[in-house]
């Protein structure tokens, strides 16, 4: 073949002067689909949708309480009840086809989502959407307080002139994406997607990374291998024993950074089942869970960052929200304390068996899908921990679908699961305690409250927090929520979600880390674009 | 155990009779036949009349594929028949499995052609015989009686001492011994008629003789009616009282064995007898017979019209090609008949025998000079 017209000519760059960045995700072969609204698209799965399309604001989930950075919008003014927002759209942004990005486009995008229920994945309660000049005004039927940052920071803005012509935006693969981001699509294959930087028209300085190569690896193993042999420079993947497997391969350059966000994992307990309806028992259980062990053995010492605060809020993301009375109060393993709590509540420890006040031995089945190895490991550890206070635990490696159904229907004793995440602790607590989504055992409650925690007080406080019009009211509500959480132990928090990354500084530097927490590291997050814009060649 | 019914019935009583027995095997239909309505079939047996009498051996001879085995299987009711009737003691019977079949099997038993194949290799002789006795309720009521019945059976077929054979597996016996076991198994049902389908063709000459002698002995001692199927016409002469000749699914000649073998009437029987090896004949004197029997046996799917032998018959007359010959008495001995127009005086008078014969001599036999010496080294 004539090398001149080959698409591959000169692609195998020498590693010297880095011009491209290789990004990997362990998500298997992709199908060409650049629809920015769909979580199932290749763009979302690998994360490059944020390199093509931009949000209005750049929100940093590592520091959720910090104000968002203006991006396509130069500012957003919320009404006190958070039911109306006025957005000012920047005037120097252009689409990659050269057309100017206007407030019309922004309004069109919101309208598109509003009118296509299938695209409204955050269930945003849109009201009126109007554009005038460079501003867009949007009203909502509910308070947007807890959703505002995600909404602004995670809604890709699309060009009206293109999308008007798309018949069904929910089922369109958007094969020739036109966005406002600094990159354009160069090539797509099921394995690798390549983006190249725009030549002109980007509203700020173009990134120094000239080309982004997103490779989709089949599974975690392949991804890890790629990271450790340098063929992937940036990824988000669970690496067991990451020090040996990854870092040690090139300690100078290979790094892992996994900051927590406001979303946690923990052991949900079925609060309707005796004896677990007894708060003392739940409290005692929480006191013996060795989070440290779970963090180190199940999560490889980094993946689900330890949640130490008794409020279940991870640090530093949740620090701003922790109630005064719980500041500095941390979870510790306290077997003796737990025994005491139990004894006080009428439980009896006979040798290695704990009997509940009615005299029955306490048994518990810990369940999680068989393929989820970190959860399974966590359960094994929890099982051992429980044995210390005489609770006989068995680990059930369930089928994933059955587990899903059983958890939603409340048919379980205890299970490891995650909560929703967001820009405030609301999402965490709502998933665990919200009475609005409480269902009878046997009826699915997909929205949360799997442990059937019935506390009208908590429900009220959650609603108060979401709809409050001033900070003080919010603070009060949050404190109430945390108090209930700490005292009632509806769930045993263990670790946080992370939006971290494994990366290499061999070719590129400027990544966020503990010293510079300007954004989340996960390449599929919206602020991955911010990360890429921060990167500089290592040897310059 | 009541194997002794010698005295009960007079000899020569008809035990089993086939009347107009016909069997057509349907041929698998091809696509193009889907559109016409004729159903092709192998005319394996057509209009066969046969009588088995107590204390007599009836031989059925004929070349391979002439339908001998089919007749036997029809008589044993292993195949449903296409037409005709089978009468057991004058009573028309048609059974298909179940109790009735077992009752029929108790009276009519069949011995299969191949002694190497007709015993299940995984079972002992004891099993085979016990089953036969049990099925037909001849096993007695206790173990001792069963043992006695087994011993009796084996003694009857001269497998002595019986203990030596009872617990052997078929493969541990010689062909002749196996054939005797097969016969013993048939006798275990205490039958009146025995259908022996080429019981000796797979055996060695010296072993063969033993089995045939045994059959004759059984006939005499137990007064059985025996159908002896073979294509070895010489053995029919020796062992059978009557001999029937089949050709292409039809009976062509019958009569007492000595007459049929020594003065054959039907041209096919003559061909058969002429072809049988004969040590007394001088070697290499094949000349005039050689081309007589030429030509392949006819297709049984579309059998020739008229007499089925006519395409190969040196005496064929025009009538043979059109009319099916009827049984005609030959007249040399009582009961000797042939289905051949040669014995119909009117026909012979009107047409010259051999006038419709096809000349078969293939050039291969007559043309001499084939080898091209220059090509053969």
């Amino acid at each position, binding site marked *: *073949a004539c*090398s001149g017209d*080959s*698409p*591959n*000519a000169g*692609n*195998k*760059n020498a590693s010297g002067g880095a011009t491209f960045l*290789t990004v990997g995700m362990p998500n298997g*072969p992709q*199908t*060409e*689909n650049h*629809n920015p609204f*769909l*979580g*199932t*698209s*290749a763009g979302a799965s690998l994360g490059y949708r944020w390199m093509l399309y931009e949000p209005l604001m750049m929100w940093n989930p590592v520091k959720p309480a910090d104000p968002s950075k203006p991006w396509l919008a130069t500012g957003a003014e919320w009404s006190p009840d958070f039911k109306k927002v006025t957005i000012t759209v920047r005037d120097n942004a252009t689409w990659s086809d050269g057309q100017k990005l206007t407030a019309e486009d922004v309004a069109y995008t919101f309208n598109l989502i509003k009118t296509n*229920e*299938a*695209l*409204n*994945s*955050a*269930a945003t309660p849109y009201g009126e959407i109007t554009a005038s000049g460079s501003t867009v005004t949007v009203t909502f039927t509910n308070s947007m307080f807890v959703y505002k940052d995600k909404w602004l920071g995670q809604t890709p803005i699309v060009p009206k002139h293109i999308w008007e012509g798309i018949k069904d935006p*929910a089922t369109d*693969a958007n094969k020739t994406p036109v966005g406002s981001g600094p990159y354009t699509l160069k090539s797509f*294959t*099921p*394995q*690798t997607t*390549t983006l190249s930087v725009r030549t002109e028209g980007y509203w700020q300085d173009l990134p120094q990374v000239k080309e982004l*190569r997103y490779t989709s*690896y*089949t*599974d975690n193993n*392949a991804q890890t*291998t790629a990271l*450790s*042999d340098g063929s992937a420079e940036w990824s988000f993947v669970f690496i067991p024993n990451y020090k040996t497997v990854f870092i040690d391969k090139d300690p100078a350059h290979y790094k892992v950074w996994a900051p927590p966000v406001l*979303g946690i*994992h923990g052991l949900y307990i079925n609060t309707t089942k005796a004896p677990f309806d007894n708060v003392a028992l739940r409290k005692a259980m929480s006191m013996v869970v060795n989070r440290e062990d779970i963090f180190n053995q199940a999560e490889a010492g980094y993946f689900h960052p330890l949640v130490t605060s008794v409020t279940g809020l991870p640090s530093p993301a949740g620090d701003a929200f922790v109630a005064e009375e719980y500041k500095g109060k941390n979870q510790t393993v306290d077997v003796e304390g737990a025994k005491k709590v139990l004894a006080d509540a009428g439980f009896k420890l006979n040798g290695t068996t704990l009997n509940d006040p009615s005299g029955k031995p306490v048994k518990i089945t810990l369940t999680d*899908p068989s393929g989820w190895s970190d959860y399974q490991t966590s359960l094994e550890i929890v099982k051992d921990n429980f044995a210390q206070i005489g609770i006989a635990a068995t680990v059930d490696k369930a089928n*994933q*679908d*059955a587990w*899903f*159904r059983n958890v939603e229907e409340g048919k379980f004793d205890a299970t490891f699961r*995650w*909560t*929703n*995440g967001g820009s405030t602790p609301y999402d965490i607590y709502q998933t665990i305690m919200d009475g609005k989504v409480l269902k009878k055992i046997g009826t699915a409650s*997909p*929205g*949360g409250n799997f442990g059937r925690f019935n506390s009208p007080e908590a429900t009220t406080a959650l609603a108060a927090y979401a709809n409050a019009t001033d900070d003080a009211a919010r603070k009060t509500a949050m404190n109430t929520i945390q108090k209930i959480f700490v005292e009632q132990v509806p769930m045993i928090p263990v670790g946080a979600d992370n*939006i971290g990354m494994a990366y290499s500084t061999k070719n590129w530097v400027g990544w966020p880390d503990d010293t510079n927490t300007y954004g989340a590291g996960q390449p599929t997050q919206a602020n991955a674009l911010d990360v890429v814009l921060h990167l500089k060649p290592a040897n310059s | 155990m009541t194997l002794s019914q010698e005295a009960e019935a007079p000899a020569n009583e008809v035990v089993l009779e086939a009347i107009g027995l016909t069997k057509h095997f349907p041929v698998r*239909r*091809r696509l193009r036949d889907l559109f016409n309505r004729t159903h092709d079939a192998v005319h394996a047996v057509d209009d066969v009349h046969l009588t088995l009498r107590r204390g007599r051996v009836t031989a059925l001879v004929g070349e391979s594929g002439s339908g001998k085995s089919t007749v036997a299987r029809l008589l044993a009711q292993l195949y449903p028949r296409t037409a005709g009737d089978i009468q057991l003691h004058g009573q028309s019977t048609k059974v298909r499995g179940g109790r009735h079949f077992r009752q029929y099997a108790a009276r009519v038993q069949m011995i299969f052609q191949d002694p190497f194949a007709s015993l299940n290799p995984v079972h002992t002789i004891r099993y085979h015989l016990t089953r036969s006795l049990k099925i037909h309720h001849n096993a007695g009521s206790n173990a001792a009686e069963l043992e006695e019945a087994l011993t009796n059976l084996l003694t009857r077929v001269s497998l002595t001492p019986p203990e030596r054979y009872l617990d052997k597996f078929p493969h541990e016996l010689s062909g002749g011994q196996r054939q005797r076991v097969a016969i013993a198994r048939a006798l275990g049902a205490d039958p009146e008629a025995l259908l022996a389908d080429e019981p000796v063709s797979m055996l060695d000459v010296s072993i063969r003789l033993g089995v045939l002698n045994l059959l004759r002995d059984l006939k005499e001692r137990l007064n059985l009616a025996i159908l002896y199927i073979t294509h070895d016409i010489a053995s029919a002469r020796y062992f059978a009282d009557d001999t029937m000749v089949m050709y292409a699914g039809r009976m062509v000649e019958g009569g007492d064995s000595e007459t049929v073998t020594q003065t054959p009437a039907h041209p096919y029987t003559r061909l058969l007898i002429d072809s049988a090896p004969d040590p007394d004949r001088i070697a290499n004197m094949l000349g005039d017979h050689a081309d007589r029997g030429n030509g392949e046996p006819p297709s049984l799917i579309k059998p020739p019209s008229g007499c089925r032998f006519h395409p190969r018959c040196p005496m064929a007359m025009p009538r043979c090609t059109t009319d099916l010959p009827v049984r005609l008495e030959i007249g040399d001995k009582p009961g000797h008949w042939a289905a051949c127009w040669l014995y119909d005086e009117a026909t012979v008078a009107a047409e010259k025998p051999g006038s419709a014969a096809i000349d078969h001599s293939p050039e291969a036999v007559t043309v001499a000079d084939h080898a091209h010496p220059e090509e053969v080294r």
Partner: protein
Amino acid sequence: MKFLVQRVLFYLFTAWAAITINFFIPRMIPGDPVKSLLARFQGQMSTDAIDSLYVLFGLDKNASVWSQYIDYWKQLFQGDLGLSFTAFPSPVSEVIGDALPWTVALVGITTIISFFIGTSLGVLAGWRRGSWIDGLLPATTFLSSVPYFWLGLLAIYLLAGPDSFFPSSGGYDGAYVPAWDQYFIPSAIQHSLLPALTILISSVSGWILSMRNMMVTVAAEDYITVAHAKGLSDRRVALSYAARNALLPNVSGFALSLGFIVGGTLLVEIVFSYPGLGFLLFRAVGAKDYPLMQGIFLVITISVLVANLIADIAYLLLDPRTRKEG
């Protein structure tokens, strides 16, 4: 002729039955694609998305299974396999189309090579009984008892690495776009070597064994003795007489395995991150992606049936005895 019509009718029936089963079985799985999607994102997708996803996947309409079945056939006859859920809204045909060539190329070629190598070695081992090839058999038996995936992982561990010639995953170098040029093709071949070797090692002994046994059986046939008696060269007797007859049963085995190419090597694809159909199916099952599962099953069913048909025809060509019925 009749034979063919009969075969075709049989294939149609089998295809219908298999497709029907393939339609109903996925629907028996509890759970649905939306839940699976949530599970995949463990916390990063909010439960708020559930409703919109149901609408998106068109699962909000409560059509009866029966009417779905009818619709499925209607779609099938229009060549429409529906939209995949995992890669929504890509059409199933496109998703399969991306994966199929890889599987067919890797596994297909390997199966063919394995068949030829195995059969040739089997011919030798059977013909020259007691020679060194015969001594090889226990070793190959052991190798064929090793699970594919384990062998593959070991191969990656031992042979692949940062400096190794063998890449440990993927179908080609990420720098290239599939194209028929001097960059891509060598890269694709290089990536296929290790998985191909794994498949080869664990599958070849089956062919060797069955061919050897057939050779031994056939070598005892009279016509082989006759062929020797005719003074033909050993080669000719071995190939034209013995192997030619011994091959017949192996051919149907080969055709059958050709059919299973598509679905049978899921694990190799998983282990080597090979972008093929087996892995796709695995993911589809995990994600409750019915349309994709059905599509893949359809492809598998059809390829098995076509392979069988080819086997029938090959038999027809190779064995004159089966040609008897016009």
